[in-house]
């Protein structure tokens, strides 16, 4: 039995996959990273500069309150509070994102981008939301296999086990995040009672729904809240079934809409969508290799 488990493990993680399968997720993730950098543009000095709200001493005390050692949240930005340098960091970050998205530099540009993102996120750790840890993880996975450059003419040219590992890491992380969100919601009473959407709207944390739209419509409130749970369950289940994977991806997109629209985690929703691309199969003409390579055993395709 142990031997069978190990074989399935190896099939799941190490089966070669076309490098082209990582190209689209890489472009999407790097574009989300560019948006993430750009989203700090207007407010960076007000938060982090000398006169900002989160000056270095205050930020370090906040970390100490949370029992986080300062050396662990490494960043060159701890040594400067200059607004110009903050802007420069953001601008360079956007450029790095574009370079990495194009495929120029391969792993090197992605590694540089990863360090750039971590450095900013660690300096602004108090401002971190759901998107930051996920973005860092995605960039790390892409270093394992960045995919093909955008100018590459033959996307089905080669398959590599590193591409399989990177693709599986993206898929598994995406699946895990949806599962964690679902379990966290089921750990609270408001989603069981069908009031989750109401609380989001009432607290002003919904981009799409206003409290006035829900007032006096208990069926809508309960229906939407329960639908959020159902969609996540369906996404988790269908993504694991190869025959129903398109439906799983569609449900995953709905989950992203929940995060970005029903709640206000827009960048995290965009990142979820980018990660969902790792579930998509390529349909390029002549790309027969891809449709054979990812799984060798029918049973393996049942694994997410």
């Amino acid at each position, binding site marked *: 039995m142990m031997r069978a488990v*190990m074989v399935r493990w190896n099939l799941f993680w*190490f089966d070669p996959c076309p490098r082209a399968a990582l190209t689209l997720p890489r472009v999407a993730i790097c574009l989300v990273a560019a948006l993430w950098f750009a989203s700090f543009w207007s*407010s960076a000095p007000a938060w982090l500069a000398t006169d900002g709200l989160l000056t270095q001493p205050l930020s370090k005390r906040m970390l100490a309150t949370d029992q986080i*050692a300062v050396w662990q949240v490494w960043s060159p930005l701890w040594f400067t509070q200059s607004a110009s340098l903050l802007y420069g960091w953001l601008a360079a970050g956007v450029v790095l994102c574009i370079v990495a998205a194009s495929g120029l530099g391969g792993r090197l540009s992605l590694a540089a981008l990863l360090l750039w993102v971590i450095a900013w996120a660690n300096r602004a750790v108090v*401002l971190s939301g759901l998107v930051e840890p996920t973005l860092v993880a995605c960039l790390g996975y892409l270093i394992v296999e960045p995919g093909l450059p955008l100018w590459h003419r033959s996307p089905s040219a080669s398959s590599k086990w590193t591409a399989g590992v990177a693709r599986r890491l993206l898929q598994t*992380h995406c699946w*895990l995040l949806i599962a964690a*969100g679902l379990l966290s919601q089921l750990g609270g*009473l408001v989603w069981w009672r069908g009031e989750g959407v109401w609380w989001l709207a009432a607290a002003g944390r919904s981009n799409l729904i206003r409290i006035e739209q829900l007032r006096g419509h208990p069926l809508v409130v309960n229906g939407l809240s329960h639908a959020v749970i159902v969609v996540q369950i369906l996404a988790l289940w269908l993504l694991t079934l*190869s025959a129903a994977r398109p439906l799983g991806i569609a449900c995953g997109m709905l989950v992203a809409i929940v995060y970005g629209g029903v709640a206000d985690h827009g960048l995290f929703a965009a990142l979820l969508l980018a990660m969902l691309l790792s579930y998509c199969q390529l349909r390029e003409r002549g790309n027969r290799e891809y449709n054979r390579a990812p799984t060798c055993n029918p049973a393996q395709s049942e694994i997410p």
Partner: protein
Amino acid sequence: MAKRKSPQRGQRASTSPATSGELARPAPEPLETTGRSLQPLDTNQIGWPSAWVRNTVSLLIIAHGLALIVAVSSNLAPSYVQGRILTRLAPYLNMTHQAYNALPLELTRGEPADFPLRVELQVPVADTTNGDARQVWQPMTIARLGDFAEAPAGQRATRWANVARWLSLTASADPEDEILSDFSARCVALAEKQTGQHYSGVRLTSPKVLSYDEDLALAGGIREPTDEAFQPTVVYSAHIVRLNEGTSAERLSLVPAQPAARTAKPTSSSEVQP
């Protein structure tokens, strides 16, 4: 959608492009999915890395996966065991920014940490009836950061919600934490710098977020909006003390407002330059 494939196809050298001749070959019989039939795939699968690489990468994947699961599962209320494990994993999780500290994976639990937090500043306003000045609270407005007058319920699409969550959790653990006064002092200093106005007090308030039933009762006239239960919760409140006022060395400090029955000395904020 992933297609089901015969294992023999997977065994082919997938590192090289398939030729038309290879594709024309008849497909062999698929293997069964029992444990015994998997054995032929176990040794030297073409395209797989060598065994030691597989073992090493597998260990790394397992270690990273476990760290991630611990971080995600204990993001809000870790158990004792989770706390101990998190302490050990902290260098890895923090250095790679993988720590999901108190992040709202659940979107909302209908608890104060999920509610908006608003900064209000106290300004003197001339009273036209008797000519005296009275103090009123007004929402803070900081250019390019937040305008609590425009969006009193919440600051969507900004980082304010993340900071507010952090401050709310800090206040729930210790309402007199110095972080609250120091952060409030920074707010006052930045607001004064931008507006040129002098404030006399600052407070962090959490507007009452009504449950569906409360909202229904309010809309139906069963309860009054003036009820105590519907008033905002004051998370932190302080008076502003100025040192060397009117000079270039002017500093301001916050002294927390004390409840009437209080005896312990409150903790002032650090001094900041307005």
